[in-house]
């Protein structure tokens, strides 16, 4: 107890003497931890939603049977005739859009006759009698009508209500026949009878998934093998939820990169804790001497400073909990949109601040604080009582070994460059991250020398340019080299991340824009209405397609059909192109550099495919390799004849001739149409005719320009969270500058008071502090820009490539970088306003004569 009391008096109580600086440090830690927590919470909520409707409503089954393009109903017959005690539940699974709210919900076709009542009792946690009645009272006749639906209670519908649904390109006026409990809204789906769903989706003779419940205590693998034996080669028997697992696996890189990005603010926060403890050690050097002389051991001193850091960490972590929860609410929306646009249909789940989240926040906060403080605490421990108590002519300043640090920086940078060339580990760019950390560390070690040389070289120049304040400011920064270096390192790290991510995103954006110019040769593109998602491929009716093809002025219509399939345990999009519809000016960017016509010509009527770059990267494939694809009931081999650059989806594409696909999956309805207008015909007239032909159908029509604008909008939205994370890191760093300048003012109060004695005006004192802030900002911008450039090379050519498999061409987003650096610089200078005001208010008589 007495030790705690001494700790409080000597270490904690002095912190409260500078409430503003204490608040800034705690807030910096809190923001750093909150960002990590927010990304973790939001990631769980966004990714957790795959499990929601489709899987929760699937019930407690053991196996699932799937096939590319759907499971033929004949397979059901085979299964039902097996002499096994299995429960077989076929499902139709797609999406419907509620016309009124534009909300996209899973559409699930269930065999109500076989399992209607079983579903009602199994899925509702505690179904009420009336809810059970809702299901059982509905007659078979009502069930089989494509206009009868059952909905979750979160939609606020009652039995008998009307609801308009858009399924593919058609509209259905449905009647709610029953409502099932759905308290969180996460299990919300539209339920239909399976036969009705087949009719609504125009997919006859096939179901999307067959769920199998095995007898109790069965061997899953054994049954998997048994069932595979009796089913056609193209049919996949796998544990239930494999699709969800595959999606999670696919999302891992996205979540992993976002999580690492969230650590930037934490690293910046760590620099600031280091700075705070560093100030504490320097200020308390005399006190350390006294307590050591009075009997404190070295270990006591070490623990005292680590304890101080831990207090800051705990305070920051506690504050981070509500902050993180708040940030997660914003982050989850952005993440869910990105997940849906790039990966898979998803709806955000609830954000749950669990005991794990609290433990995570506390561990990170305290851990980072202690790690930041450990070297300083050891330094304090080494202080000898006699040296510390003796008041020399020269005040104690922390030691900085510029040359040694510069050498360490060079070694780290070389090591970073070497490590960056290492391959991915289990699909993750671990060495890329290590290289990033090594470069950040190299920069931190190089900064003292940079600050020293900059200050000594520019001192006189600044004196001439800015006046005596410039001279004094540069001398002051060089004099408190360690503190200045830590500040410059923290802000430059944040700026470097901003610059590197800015360059990476700018390069990516430019690459995508160039790519789209080549990829969109048609005049118009059509797709069914509703929110687009990477894994949803609603179809356009064949009649409408034929009608559009016959419109005068339409030269040709390219029918693209897409399916979601699984290849080597990962989801991928299988698509077909209508080679007969292609024009000679259709251009694609192939790895081989061969003309498009030549490459696509090789697809014609052959078991050959072209694949997208992310697909080859994920599966370690190249042109010339052969892949085996499960298509319908068959499983066949296809040769990869070329690889093309593609930025539409990270899941990857396999592209084949439409005629080839029809051999395996004979559903002629297209997912998208690309319409080419006859030369010299006014495209707007043709557009009007297409709109007229599509009246009554829910089809969206885009020009190539619309599509580009939409793609860039989605792109910018995707990276909005990245910018938000960077902004927090920069904000934390700027706050750190404000806090550090404040402590600089307090530490130098005697000097500032003396300047007043020597004739300095209040204006000059204010200007001096602002010039120091400006110099700090300038140094940090310079160091941050250089470091940011090198980090951007790792991001573009190593981390991005190894995570997502995209080739990005380097591009300088000059305007964005200039704008961001200017804003950060202005913020740094402005952060000096309050410390400057404190400096002006100092009483020179008190501060010069004290001590």
């Amino acid at each position: 107890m007495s030790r705690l009391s001494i700790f409080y008096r000597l270490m904690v109580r002095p912190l409260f003497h500078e409430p503003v600086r204490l608040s800034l440090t705690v807030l910096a830690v809190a923001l750093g931890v909150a960002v990590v927590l927010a990304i973790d919470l939001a990631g769980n909520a966004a990714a957790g939603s795959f499990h929601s409707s489709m899987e929760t409503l699937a019930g407690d089954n053991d196996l699932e049977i799937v096939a590319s393009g759907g499971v033929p109903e004949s397979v059901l017959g085979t299964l039902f005739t097996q002499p096994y005690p299995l429960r077989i539940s076929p499902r139709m699974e797609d999406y419907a859009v509620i016309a009124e709210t534009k909300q996209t919900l899973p559409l699930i076709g269930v065999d109500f006759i076989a399992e209607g009542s079983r579903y009602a009792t199994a899925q509702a946690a505690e179904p009420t009698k009336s809810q059970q009645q809702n299901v059982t009272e509905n007659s078979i006749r009502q069930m089989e009508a494509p206009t009868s639906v059952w909905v979750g209670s979160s939609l606020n519908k009652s039995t008998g209500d009307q609801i308009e649904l858009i399924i593919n390109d058609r509209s259905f006026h449905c009647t709610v026949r029953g409502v099932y409990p759905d308290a969180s809204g996460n299990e919300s789906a539209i339920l239909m009878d399976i036969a009705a769903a087949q009719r609504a989706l125009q997919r006859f003779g096939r179901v999307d998934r067959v769920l199998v419940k095995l007898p109790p205590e069965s061997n899953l693998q054994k049954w998997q093998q048994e069932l595979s034996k009796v089913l056609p080669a193209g049919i996949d028997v796998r544990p239930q939820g494999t699709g969800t697992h595959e999606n999670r696996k696919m999302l891992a890189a996205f979540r992993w990169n976002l999580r690492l990005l969230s650590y930037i603010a934490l690293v910046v926060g760590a620099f600031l804790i280091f700075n705070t403890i560093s100030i504490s050690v320097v200020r308390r050097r005399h006190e350390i001497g006294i307590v050591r002389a009075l009997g404190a051991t070295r270990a006591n001193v070490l623990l005292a400073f680590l304890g101080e850091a831990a207090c800051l960490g705990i305070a920051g972590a506690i504050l981070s909990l509500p902050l993180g929860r708040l940030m997660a609410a914003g982050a989850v929306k952005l993440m869910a949109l990105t997940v849906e646009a790039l990966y898979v249909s998803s709806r955000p789940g609830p954000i749950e601040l669990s005991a794990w989240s609290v433990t995570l926040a506390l561990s990170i906060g305290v851990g980072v604080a202690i790690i930041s403080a450990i070297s300083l605490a050891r330094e304090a421990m080494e202080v000898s009582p006699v040296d510390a108590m003796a008041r020399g002519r020269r005040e104690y300043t922390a030691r900085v070994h510029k040359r040694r640090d510069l050498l360490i920086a060079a070694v780290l940078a070389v090591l970073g460059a070497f490590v960056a060339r290492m391959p991915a580990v289990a699909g993750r760019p671990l060495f890329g991250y290590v290289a990033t950390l090594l470069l950040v560390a190299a920069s931190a070690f190089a900064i003292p020398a940079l600050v020293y040389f900059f200050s000594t070289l520019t001192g006189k120049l600044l004196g001439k340019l800015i006046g005596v304040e410039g001279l004094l400011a540069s001398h002051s920064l060089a004099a408190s080299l360690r503190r200045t270096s830590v500040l410059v390192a923290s802000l430059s790290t944040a700026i470097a991340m901003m610059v590197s991510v800015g360059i990476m995103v700018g390069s990516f954006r430019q690459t995508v824009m160039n790519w789209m110019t080549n990829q969109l040769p048609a005049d118009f593109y059509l797709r069914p209405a509703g929110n687009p998602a990477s894994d949803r491929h609603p179809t356009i009716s064949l009649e409408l397609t034929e009608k559009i093809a016959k419109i005068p002025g339409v030269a040709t219509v390219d029918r693209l059909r897409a399916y979601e399939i699984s290849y080597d345990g990962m989801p991928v999009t299988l698509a077909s192109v209508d080679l007969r519809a292609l024009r000679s000016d259709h251009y694609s960017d192939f790895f081989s550099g061969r003309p498009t016509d030549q490459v696509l010509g090789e697809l014609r009527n052959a078991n050959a495919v072209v694949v997208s770059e992310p697909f080859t990267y994920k599966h370690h494939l190249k042109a010339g390799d052969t892949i085996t694809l499960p298509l319908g009931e068959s499983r066949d081999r296809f040769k990869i004849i070329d690889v093309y650059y593609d930025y539409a989806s990270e899941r990857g594409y396999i592209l084949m001739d439409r005629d080839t696909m029809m051999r395996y999956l004979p559903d002629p309805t297209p997912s998208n149409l690309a319409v080419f207008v006859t030369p010299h015909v006014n495209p707007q007239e043709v557009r009007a005719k297409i709109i007229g032909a599509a009246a009554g159908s829910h089809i969206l029509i885009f020009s190539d320009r619309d599509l580009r604008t939409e793609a860039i909008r989605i792109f910018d939205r995707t990276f909005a969270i990245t910018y938000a994370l960077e902004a927090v890191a920069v904000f934390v760093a700027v706050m750190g500058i404000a806090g550090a300048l404040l402590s600089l003012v307090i530490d130098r109060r005697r000097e500032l008071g003396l300047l007043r004695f020597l004739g300095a005006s209040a204006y000059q004192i204010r200007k001096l502090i602002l010039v120091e802030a400006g110099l700090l900002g300038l140094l940090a911008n310079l160091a941050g820009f250089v470091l940011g450039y090198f980090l951007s090379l790792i991001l573009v050519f190593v981390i991005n490539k190894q995570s997502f498999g995209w080739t990005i061409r380097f591009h300088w987003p000059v305007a964005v970088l200039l704008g961001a650096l200017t804003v950060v610089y202005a913020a740094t200078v402005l952060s000096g306003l309050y410390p400057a005001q404190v400096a002006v208010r100092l009483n020179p008589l008190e501060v010069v004569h004290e001590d």
Partner: protein
Amino acid sequence: MPILSLQNVVKEYLTDGLAVQALAGVTLDVNGGEFVALVGRSGCGKSTLLNLAGAMDFPTAGVVQIGGASTSALGDAELTKLRRDKVGFVFQSFQLLHTLTAIENIELPLLLSGRNNAREAAYERLRWVELDGLADRFPHQLSGGQMQRVAIARALVHSPKILLADEPTGNLDTATGSVILHLLRRLTREQKTATIMATHSLEAANLCNTLVQLRDGRIVEVTRR
């Protein structure tokens, strides 16, 4: 006309809500070329008088005039200008900026007031204090006596009418202190500066033209030699 004039000056401070009188009706005139020693026990009001004389503080009552201008009537900017032009300070603990060399410390007041030829003036003052060869040394490379000489040179760099020295030999050994005191006396005579020095040292007091004895915030005796 005296360069510094204090008329019935009273100075009170509030300490924990209680008024403490540091000066209680002090009247004193000091002329150019006069070397004044303020003597008395600790807490008798020597430093307070110096602060008022240097326009660093205002009297609670009475008038402090520097070159005919009452400090109480001036704003912050005018007081700053007054100090820049007319007052120089020397402190017991030298108060040099450790980040600046000797010459940079000396020229600092001129730079702060935006005057030209600061470096030349600084070198001249360095010669006055006989430290010509040490211009580029930092304070920690100088002895205590050398540091105080630099401080004196800095205090005189803008040719002030008043030089205020608060225990200038307090941190020096006897021999070095003696050198500093003779230096101050020489410069006072040569530059016609009004030098007011707070001191405990008898030797210092004996070197001055005027000896002002203070007790409990009052002047008890003024001896002019």
